[in-house]
């Protein structure tokens, strides 16, 4: 195929237009993909880190002069946690504050032993090993905080 003389300026114009569009497209695609990945990356790290930090902050919270959030959870099988409204209120208040959520649960290897909100949280998860009061059968257990 041979193009006539009159087509040369049109071809150049076409080349210019296509180049410009391609360049703009390139920049736009690059910026959008970059932004998308950076935002998702930051969001992922923020959420992930926040769940663990929220749980760590809770562990350090003072319940009274001798015990902390850690003690309440670690010794919950012998400190009467299930029937102690004061302890439960403490856990709820502290986790409301640290997770900024009203939908969360605490889970051990067997079951959910504490839950707030009529929901099934799945989004943010933090698990830590807790040393528990002495028992030759078991000295450590994993407790997981999940919140939305």
């Amino acid at each position, binding site marked *: *195929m041979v193009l006539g003389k009159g087509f040369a300026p049109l071809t150049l114009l*076409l080349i210019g237009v296509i180049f410009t569009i391609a360049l703009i497209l390139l920049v736009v695609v690059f910026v959008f993909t970059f932004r998308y990945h950076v935002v998702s990356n930051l969001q*992922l790290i923020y959420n*992930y880190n926040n769940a663990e930090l929220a749980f760590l902050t809770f562990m350090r919270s003072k319940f009274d002069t001798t015990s902390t959030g*850690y003690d309440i959870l670690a010794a919950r099988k012998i400190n009467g946690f299930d029937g102690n409204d004061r302890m439960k209120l403490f856990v709820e208040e502290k986790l409301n504050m640290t997770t900024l959520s009203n939908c969360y649960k605490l889970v051990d290897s067997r079951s959910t032993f504490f839950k707030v909100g009529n929901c099934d949280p799945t989004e943010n998860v933090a698990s830590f*090993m807790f040393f528990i*009061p*002495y*028992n030759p059968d078991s000295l450590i257990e994993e407790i997981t905080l999940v919140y939305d």
Partner: protein
Amino acid sequence: MKGIGPIALAIIVVVVGLLLSGAFFNMFIGTTVIIRETIKEKTVLNAVNKMESIKIGVEHALYYSFSQGAYEVLLTGGYDDLSTLRKEDDTPYWRVYDKTYYPADYLENIASRVDSIFEEYRKASVDVFIPDGEIEMTHIPNGLLINFHSTGLLKYETEFVRLYDNPNTTLILKDSIKTMFERSREMFIDQDSIRDKIVEACQVACTVENIRQELKSLEQTYDGIEIQLDVKNIITDGMDGAALVLVIVRDKENEYPVYDYLSHYTNLELRFYVLSGTKQLI
């Protein structure tokens, strides 16, 4: 300019193809790189947080070790090893008439037991390595100082991160143990309160009931410590009498988590026997 059309078109196609494939490659390679970096960052953050949780945990493991260790050693009269002592049901005799067997190194005995229990916690730790170390316990003016110190480091290791931290931990607890031992020593070692009461009783009427009544008057609550006497045996002979008493010294103000076939909170109890009297009748 005749041939510019097809060449230009070819260039356009090639360049646009290159630009677009560059953009898509950037997207896919960028995604892979970012995911890999995210995993690395998550691993580092996870390691830091895990290490922090274990540092909190070590304090609690030390406290639980102390609770259990102190509970066990106090039940055996402050001794860690009863093999050379006169004892009954793993409760040693602190006094057999004029001879006394006060566990002057009770704090070392408790520390030794705490150390072996803490060793179990140390080995139970998963993910984070807790180094071997020593437990020291010291009476200080405002309490009982319990210190775990090690020359090693806490260690957490994964493919992307290796993290170390100082494991040394110190607890300061209310020192009821010192009061329990010192008050017991005053009453049953420095003085022979049992004998004194038998003498008092026998000056009036040297009967089993009278001696029992006098011994009951030794029961008291002192600075949050309750002293109870379980009189096991009293024998009289004329104006003489002797008694075997199980002394139970209880910290009434503090409860500790312990295991005794069942995990529960309880007060610490120091238990020992005192055998005394005006004559060796038992």
